[in-house]
């Protein structure tokens, strides 16, 4: 029945050959670290040093490509971890957002299930507009994260951490050296 329904629906849908409207051109936005930090902090995000982040107690689960920078995970069950550590693909200054993709190196739940999410970000990966950020989307399932999990369902009062992480921290890490064969270790 399903394919018959498909034909029924499709047969009645409009088709034209007119040109599509132009894609929206974003207003100019600075791709600076300052701008990113300002937007990210306004959402309730924190920017911390590697030492501060590492000083945390608690079980952490770490994405494969973050291990050389952060160190080994201390937890194997993403649902039990207190902290999820990931490496950002890029950051968007306009919105204070971070882009992550699912891959053999990245699990999807690492940025979602633990109550604290720590994102390692290379300063050189900051772009200006949302357009520039989403321009870096890979073919894989991805997520753009803009601040901590939040709800305002109860009388419009803002509450963080209802299902996703209550805290989102960014640790700025040095850029990759052009000749470096191994990633930086703090």
């Amino acid at each position: 029945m399903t394919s018959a329904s498909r034909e029924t629906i499709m047969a009645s849908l409009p088709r034209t050959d007119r040109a599509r409207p132009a894609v929206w051109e974003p207003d100019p936005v600075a791709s600076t670290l300052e701008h990113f930090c300002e937007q990210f902090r306004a959402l309730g995000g924190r920017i911390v040093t590697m030492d501060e982040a590492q000083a945390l107690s608690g079980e952490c689960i770490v994405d494969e490509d973050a291990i050389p920078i952060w160190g080994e995970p201390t937890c194997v069950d993403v649902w039990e971890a207190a902290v999820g550590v990931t490496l950002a693909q890029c950051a968007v200054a306009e919105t204070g957002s971070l882009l992550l993709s699912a891959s053999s190196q990245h699990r999807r739940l690492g940025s979602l299930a633990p109550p604290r999410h720590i994102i390692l970000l290379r300063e050189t990966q900051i772009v200006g507009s949302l357009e520039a950020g989403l321009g870096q989307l890979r073919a894989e399932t991805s997520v753009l994260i803009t601040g901590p999990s939040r709800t305002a369902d109860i009388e419009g009062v803002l509450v963080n951490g209802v299902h996703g992480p209550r805290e989102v921290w960014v640790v700025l890490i040095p850029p990759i050296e052009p000749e470096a064969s191994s990633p930086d270790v703090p």
Partner: protein
Amino acid sequence: MSAKPRVEAYARTLSESTVNSVRSASAQKTRSRVSMLHQVFADPDAARTRAAEIKGYVLDNLGTLLESFEREATKNGVQFHWATDAAEARSIIAEIVQKAAKPGATIVKAKSMATEEIHLNDALIRLGYDVVETDLGEYVVQIDHDTPSHIVTPIIHKNRKQIAQSFEREGLGPYTEVPEELAMQARVRLRNAFRSASIGISGVNYAIADTGRIVLVENEGNNRLSTTAPRVHIALMGIEKVLPSESDLPLFLRLLAGSATGQHVTTYSHFIAGPRLPDQLDGPEEVHVVMLDNGRSKAVNGPYRDILKCIRCGACLNVCPVYRQASGHAYDHVYSGPLGAVLAPVLEGVDKLGDLAKASTLCGACEEVCPVQIPIPHMLLMLRDEAFRAGVIKEPIPWSAYAFAGTNPTVWKAGLTVLPMASVAPHPMKWGWSEFRENPTRIGRNFRKWWGSREK
């Protein structure tokens, strides 16, 4: 007149505290919408115009764009299903569910108006599944056996006391009215559901024709959890939800978040390509997209086509003076407010819900805030015409008699001598007027007499 129109009748049953909850939350969201859109766009109206043009293009090319979306998403491993109406959509989803898990299994649901539209939960519960709404607001709606009163903030009609009582009744934890503590009680309860669920069901905010991706936006994280943790993900989407290209997303992400909740973008924008790839560490093994027509293919070829541009931001509900007084339940449909007053009769039939078009002052605020510039007042007028001709709406006064006077100046002028003594004359405004207000009385001189005396 005997029976009152449904929105008025419902509004009369509301407590003052409910009206206050709806009114103050709506007004707050209206204010934050304005300030955010001006912060995000140098020219918000130019952004709205472009978004409306893109949505117009989508509707003109729905066939082509859906084919492209289906082709690309299929390459990514997504399985497609097509439903002409709500019943077919329910049975398709039931079949996927029954294949994936035995009755008794947990199904986690992300907030989705499309699933509300087809009344999916009841159907799955009848089959023996444990269906759990995971959006905080929708969870409260579910445990209270209520329905959402707003398309974005489903429990806008409830205050924290009522929520606290519900949570205590359900054994979520010690009684508390602190929103943070209530949210944490829900987090703990729902986390177990995410971990044990075999199936996650969501809606779709945008389907991208050129990449085959589906895009979901949310703030809580329940949507991501529902579509990531279970083995099977089912996404139900109205066929109008497609966008031509991923490059269109930034504009719509900004407009939707700004219009809905006064955010720059929502906390999570989830770009789902398809099921987990062999080398990936997590994610669902199966992703199904169920395409829902349910009146849309008819609407796209009719006079109310523009209502299909709607991106479900709820800004028209928030700004609507009638919605603020009556709340969403007054509309007897999952789509309420100005959007619902058009979309509900368009989807369900003017014969069933055409009277909703009368639940408006035609003030035009809805069109003014609409991120895709849907001419809602214009469509409400067209619906009134259609509903009147179909005999669906009953009028307090016979307009044919009014037209007789209005085309016969002598009769008109004779009527005018009677009308100001409205307390004794049959007065068009009397029904429903004098219950709440003093009758109008003639103030000062009569214009026609004054003009006549001047001409002499």
